[in-house]
């Protein structure tokens, strides 16, 4: 039988506010354990939460970017459960009146609906001594720095139908949240966390199969692998005639499989009820309109613009728009007058290579849009070859500079002087008589060797067309 997966994702995105959602402690990553805490976020008796309006604003911003309806009235609820990282014994969240509802985003032409997005506070973090978890540890410590950090939980509809699509959805969602500057989107640091609901059903069947919830996936790759592994597990189980048990399963990166969480830890009745310490929030339409007016261009719009206005291929447009930083720079280079195709190639090729190689962000580089324009001009004028252009580009990324100055200083200007080049080529041929006779004996492949030797002798600055021309002349003579 053929099965089709049905997948829904729940994402917890940490909102980039200066302070926490219900107190004035700093909300950023880092700090010594329990350095960013106060009586409110460690749940001391008698303290009260006060809502951070900036967190609400970032939630509205996210909702609008995800095509959601923004609630006119929203409220907070208490979600009750005991755990040492939850200082009040309840989490302030939103239950039946989330701030955002009914949105969607598009991946590869397919619309994935968003069921809801709601605000809540993060819990603290446990550090266990002598074991991976609370169970079996010698002792455990709590760090409340993260407690009270604002989160937006974004819940998709079960519209995703493959592990690959799940990864694309997540990447697009993260990209959107980064574009609108509400979330760092860092999976490793936990500022962007994902749980997946996975079920399978025979193709053509209407009813949904029993779902499981997968947790503990810390990278895009892990999400894709975990979901695929769970799909495979469920299909295999069904084919053996077994039933799927509704449960929470943890992804194990090392074994590449999911395993069930201990049932004791998930048997929760959260006993939601309205948070009496906060009043319902009326979200004025003027506020929503203001936030809407301040929304930047979104990835989808940018991709379309690159294809239509700059005539990039859809693939290139997609690749370039994936990074807001890189494509922001691309846009500035366009304003400076750089040609689109060449700029896109330089950014997506050698620039991305350089960033990966040095493990840095684009914001840590020094190139200016004018540099980019000059670089491409030098390339088009024949002053630089593609190989020397790359060297200049790396210099510009490394430190502030000027194309002409670097070319001069490093002696990278393309050698197009016919007399000089003829001398170099002649020397290469005289130094390698054996290869010359091979060539003349019919081994024409040796020609590549001569070309390489000439380039080596000129440190890549020789004008390739001229080298070819001179080689032809001297070898056929």
């Amino acid at each position, binding site marked *: 039988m053929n099965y089709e997966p049905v997948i829904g994702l729940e994402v917890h995105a940490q909102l980039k506010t200066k302070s926490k959602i219900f107190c004035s402690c700093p909300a950023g990553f880092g700090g010594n354990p329990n350095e960013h805490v106060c*009586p409110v976020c460690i749940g*001391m*008796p*008698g*303290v009260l939460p006060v809502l951070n309006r900036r967190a609400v604003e970032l939630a509205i911003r996210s909702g609008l970017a995800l095509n959601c309806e923004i609630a006119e009235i929203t409220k907070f609820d208490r979600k009750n459960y005991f755990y040492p990282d939850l200082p*009040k*014994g309840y989490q302030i969240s939103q239950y039946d009146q989330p701030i955002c509802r009914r949105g969607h985003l598009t991946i590869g032409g397919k619309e994935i609906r968003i069921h809801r997005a709601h605000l809540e506070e993060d819990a603290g973090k446990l550090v266990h001594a002598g074991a991976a978890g609370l169970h079996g540890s010698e002792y455990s410590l*709590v760090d409340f720095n993260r407690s009270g950090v604002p989160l937006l939980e974004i819940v998709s509809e079960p519209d995703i139908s493959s592990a690959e699509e799940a990864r694309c959805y997540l990447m697009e969602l993260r990209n959107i949240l980064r574009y609108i500057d509400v979330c760092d989107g860092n999976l490793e640091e936990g500022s962007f966390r994902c749980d997946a609901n996975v079920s399978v059903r025979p193709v053509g069947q209407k009813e949904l199969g029993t779902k499981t919830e997968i947790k503990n996936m810390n990278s895009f790759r892990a999400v894709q692998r975990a979901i695929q592994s769970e799909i495979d597990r469920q299909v295999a189980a069904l084919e053996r005639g077994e039933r799927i048990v509704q449960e929470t399963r943890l992804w194990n990166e090392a074994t590449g499989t999911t395993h069930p969480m201990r049932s004791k830890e998930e048997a929760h009745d959260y*006993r939601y*009820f309205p948070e009496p310490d906060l009043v319902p929030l009326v979200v004025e339409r003027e506020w929503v309109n203001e936030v809407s007016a301040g929304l930047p261009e979104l990835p989808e719009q940018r991709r379309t613009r690159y294809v239509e206005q700059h005539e990039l291929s859809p693939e290139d447009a997609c690749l370039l728009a994936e990074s807001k930083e890189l494509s922001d720079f691309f846009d500035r280079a366009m304003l400076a007058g750089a040609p689109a195709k060449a700029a896109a190639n330089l950014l997506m090729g050698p620039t991305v290579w350089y960033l990966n190689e040095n493990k840095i962000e684009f914001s840590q580089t020094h190139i200016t849009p004018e540099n980019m324009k000059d670089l491409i001009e030098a390339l088009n004028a024949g002053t630089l070859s593609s190989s020397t252009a790359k060297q200049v580009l790396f210099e510009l990324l490394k430190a502030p500079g000027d194309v002409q100055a670097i070319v001069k200083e490093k002696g990278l200007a393309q050698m197009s002087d016919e007399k000089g080049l003829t001398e170099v080529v002649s020397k290469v041929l005289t130094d390698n008589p054996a290869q010359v006779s091979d060539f003349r004996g019919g081994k024409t492949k040796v020609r590549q060797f001569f070309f390489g030797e000439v380039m080596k002798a000129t440190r890549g600055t020789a004008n390739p067309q001229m080298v070819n021309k001179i080689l032809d002349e001297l070898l056929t003579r």
Partner: protein
Amino acid sequence: MKELVGKSVQELRALLGGKAVSAREVLAAHRQHIDSVEPELQAFNCLTEDLAARQAARVDKLIADGEVLPPLAGVPIALKDNICVPGYPTTCSSRILESYRPPYQATVAERLQEAGAIFVGKTNLDEFAMGSSTENSGFKPTRNPWNTAMVPGGSSGGSAVAVASGMSVIALGSDTGGSIRQPASFCGVAGMKPTYGRVSRFGLVAFASSLDQIGPLGRCLEDVAITLSVISGHDGKDSTSLSLPVPEYVKELTGDVEGLRIGVISELTGQGMDAEVLESVELAARQLGQLGAGVEEVSLPATRHALAVYYLIATAEASANLARYDGVKYGYRHRQAEDLLSMYRASRQEGFGVEVKRRIMLGTYALSSGYYDAYYKKAQQVRRLIKEEFDRAFARFDLLVCPTSPTVAFEFGARTGDPLQMYLSDIATIPVNLAGLPGISIPCGFGKSGLPIGLQLIGPTLGDAQVLRAAHAFEQATEFHKKRSPVLSAA
């Protein structure tokens, strides 16, 4: 020295302003009185001696510098031990918080301090303010100064006793279902629960957040009015506090009730009320009529459901509010537990008293899946009905009256075996909290045993001033407030 005990705020102000006495002397006189009566009454969980000395010295400096004295300069005040004052324990009379010292100050404490008040100590209460006799204190019983065989009421029993016995001039209590008004009634003093949101709850250890409200207790209405003005007003740290200007309540005490329309709540002036209580309340209503108010009966049938609604909503909120006492961060922890769950269980089992555990169970049940709609949600709907019924009544009346409590103070142990009997103590005060209204209890007579009887006056939302005005007019026209508890008249 003794003559400094039993004075009102204005009397002390005159003495201090005229440099007849110093704040230190006022404090010393009260300390001396505390030393003599506290061993028997047991109103305090702790005395804040160092803080009081510093506060008195500050007031004396103001006097010496010829500064204008703030409204409560040099006035000894007692704070219920669920209101946070840094440097001293805030225990809520619970073993689970026995060692807890908050690093922050309640907004009311801050405002009192700015107004020059002198904090003499933190008063005993029913554990986490859950109770009507202060017998649920995890530490000790507090005795009624009118008759020490009787309970003082609760949960703000310690605060009512401190004021009635003269150990402090005024006190703060908290009122979730009657916890200021009922002990005020039992102890023969005035005690007010302001409109919900009038006074900041920041630094008040929560019992039921949508019902809790801090309020003053005093031996006269003027003291209550002055204190209420000091502690009222918007607080950025409490999202439920109202951002409306605060009147100078003392100026509202005109003695004039001419033309005031007063409704006597028929559901709360019949069955279930002791005859002597009803008699005094009827006389009081007639008295208000003689002062020029129009008095009529009014029926509020929905109030019959108030007790049931209250014990669902208050316990539901409490079940969440008290979840933080889990032995992890502060307070009592059972040390021998083998794992997390048994640590939670043993810490809470041993740290909380019986009544607190009963209410946590009740509230947890009311919120549980499958029961939420039938209990918590239904209770919220009936709460709205009660509120609407009050709103309709206030379209016809300016004030409503009824007894504060069905009985005078009862003996220790008389109701501890029957929680429902104990809960019925608050049958007349609970509807006021559910509707968020201002209510006050003032002395209106004495029972056959010589114990005080309280009259409750209830106003519309933000009608705190008219509640105070009518209560004051009644006080001025009668002698009840002048009768002092034996402990104080002997001082």
